[in-house]
């Protein structure tokens, strides 16, 4: 099991990465024009009130000192207090993380469920009508932005057919998943087009490749050639592509959560940005960044599990 030794070593490499991410998000958030105190006070803002709020949240300190306090808080497991919600940012995030996590997971699974059969179909008919149809559809998929796709799905499934809810999130597990079907489908349709292209290309190469020829030469039927040899070998590059697309996926949840009014992190982030709630924005950005690092780490583990040649 020495193959998996990197699982122990890798987390240490995360520390400098996370440090860099925290500096960048911290500074970038403060570069956004506007003042949280002014937004919070709205029409009631007076110079004195603004100064009081700024002092209360430490915004009157120099930026490096603010960052130092931020790190100090982080060491105690705190991310500061939300200016808008008046509660600890970490607590706020924990209440919002579940819908987003479920949404991402469902989207990835759904996109694989869509991509694998379609890519197989296209690759096996390489150049045939099925291949052209799949390529045509997936090219369209790339062209449709998720927010438009989300609206079309709502109009068709929720308004016309009335089979799925228009928006919101449920209470029970079944109800929650039921509410997530359309949002996941929105993201999965976009993501699967990328996966289909990658998988199809890899499969066509593998189908013509030496491994498949050798399998045919020992009399394996096409189904075994495909499922036992072509498919696993084609999945290796696709898993990495999926990991690279996680950043894009998170961007997708922000849009989709807003459209479907899902109480997740994406929606939280959008509101926080509008109200210049610095603490929340940098907290959510940190969580998203950590998630991206973590997903790539998981992808590495999966790659090692599928491909014994990879040594980390």
């Amino acid at each position, binding site marked *: 099991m020495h193959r998996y030794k990197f699982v122990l070593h890798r987390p240490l490499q995360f520390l400098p990465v996370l440090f860099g991410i925290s500096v960048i998000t911290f500074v970038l958030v403060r570069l956004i024009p506007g003042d949280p105190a002014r937004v919070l006070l709205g029409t009631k803002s007076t110079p004195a009130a603004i100064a009081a709020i700024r002092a209360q949240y430490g915004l009157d300190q120099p930026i490096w000192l603010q960052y130092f306090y931020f790190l100090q808080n982080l060491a105690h497991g705190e991310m500061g207090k939300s200016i808008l919600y008046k509660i600890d940012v970490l607590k706020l995030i924990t209440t919002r993380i579940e819908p987003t996590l479920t949404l991402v997971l469902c989207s990835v699974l759904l996109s694989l469920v869509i991509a694998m059969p379609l890519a197989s179909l296209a690759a096996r008919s390489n150049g045939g009508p099925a291949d052209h149809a799949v390529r045509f559809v997936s090219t369209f998929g790339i062209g449709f932005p998720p927010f438009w796709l989300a609206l079309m799905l709502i109009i068709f499934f929720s308004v016309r057919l009335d089979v799925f809810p228009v928006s919101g999130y449920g209470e029970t597990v079944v109800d929650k998943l039921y509410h997530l079907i359309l949002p996941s489908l929105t993201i999965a349709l976009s993501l699967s087009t990328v996966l289909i292209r990658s998988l199809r290309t890899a499969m066509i190469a593998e189908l013509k490749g030496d491994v498949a*020829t050798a399998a045919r030469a020992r009399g394996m039927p096409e189904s075994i050639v495909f499922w036992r040899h072509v498919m696993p070998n084609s999945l*290796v590059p696709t898993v990495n592509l999926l990991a690279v697309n996680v950043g894009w996926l998170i961007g997708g949840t922000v849009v989709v959560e807003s459209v479907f009014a899902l109480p997740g992190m994406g929606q939280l982030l959008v509101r926080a940005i509008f109200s210049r709630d610095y603490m929340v924005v940098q907290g959510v950005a940190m969580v998203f960044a950590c998630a991206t690092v973590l997903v790539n780490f998981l992808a590495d583990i999966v790659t090692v599990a599928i491909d014994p040649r990879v040594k980390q």
Partner: protein
Amino acid sequence: MSEPLLSVRDLSVVFAGEDGPRTLIDSLSFDLGKGEILGLVGESGSGKSLTCRSLVRLMPSPKLAITSGTVMLDGKDLTTVSEADIREVRGRDIGMIFQNPTSHLDPLMRIGDQIAEGIRVHRGVDSKEARAVALDILAQVGFPHPARQYNGYPHEFSGGMRQRAMIGVALSCDPRILIADEPTTALDVTIQAQILRLLMDLRESRGLSVILITHDLGIVAQTCDRIAVLRQGRLLEIGDKRDVLGRPQHPYTQNLIASHPSMPERQALAVIAQEPVPLKARPLVEIDDLHVRFPVTGRGLFSGGPREFAAVKGVSLQVMPGETVGIVGESGSGKSTLARALLGLTPISEGHVTFDGADIVTERTKALRKLRRETAMVFQDPYNALNPRLTIGATLAEVLAVQESVPKERIPERIGELLDLVGLEREFASRKPLSMSGGQCQRAGIARALAVNPKLIVADECVAALDVTIQAQIVDLFRDLKQRLNLTLLFIAHDLAIVRNLCERVVVMYHGQIVEEGPTEDVFSAPREAYTQALIDAIPDIDPDKPLVSPRGGDALAEETSGLVTGEIS
């Protein structure tokens, strides 16, 4: 030969190209007897691989089709049986092994499972029983620890063991015929000898019939019963190996035999007229106690300091101006690393390399400038070494312009001269590599090397990828150039016979060290080291009556069969 097992009659294969159909295999007929090894010989493009693929209808492209003829096995014509029937024939009656086991074994699957797969599908047994059979087969093809090695992945084994695994896969369903497509071309000579021995043993123990495709007449002479010579899809000659090799009928076969770089008779102390090197001459290249080490990847935070792999360990060598030195050794012996270090392409860990008085370590800038102006390299794969988008003329002009050795207006003239030197028509200046043959490309590669006006040319396995007749032509070209231009040539090769034909002095490398060096004839006729002897013995001789010396025991064999590669870098 009594009743043939497999009988091919008037087989034709046609390629439906864009500019009309092309016949790639033209009315081929031959028989294969039970327990017979038939050698299919021919150069690249002769259709020998395609013939064998056609026997089991594994066409490499959908544009290829069998247009006429029959392939009879057990009274059935394999060209007309159903798809399901031919699938039963593949693996069950006819097994196949390939030139490159690395690309043909599934990298994600344990080798034992790849053998068991066929057993499960063809015999319909459960996985436990299939595993037992697979373990037995692993032992038969020479895996010393089947139970442990069953779980190994292809990349964990050396090239020779991978080919054994491939043979195991092909034999999993007990076929009567084995088609071996250049099974040893990618292997070192000593490993090649072991694999050929294994094939012959399997023929004995299983009564297997083998069709052996090869370009090496030495291999056919040593292993086959009969030989079929193919050229451009036609069968030129077929017969008993002694008849074909001893009294070749067709001029092409005669040429093929003449081109074979076979070892001349081993004479006791062969006297070769050799020009004594003037004692006062300063060596052009001086290598002194050279070490080259590479860091081994996989360095972790907890595994201590960086680990290193020593590719060259303490080599000292002098090359005089005008000398031709051959460096031979198996893959991983450090011969290419030595050449790269000498040209300043690989960092030197320890020791000194001096080129024409300039030390690469202490006077790096000066030495590198000198090296780039006065040395050139010729590479193994001529297609990959030439820019496919540039014409040969543009490639040569580029070198001439950078070197500024000839004035701009004289460049076209110089290109013409260079092409003359390497024996290419001047019209090749406007051709691109992909429209040329391998031999023509290699000539262009040599012309590019000569464009520098080099004092030293390093040729790294530069004929390994070429057909024998072309090999012979390129070696002749080198010999000719050496004399006309007073070149110093460092010729790296794994093929001892070619080195013997071309080089005055030979250096034998093993595991990063020089084990033996001296005048070529002395080394080959009376090798002092057991390793050199083993290398020479492993070369299949074209004379069938000089049997292949069975591979030595000792360390090399032990290393090969121990199963796991030690991380050698070639």
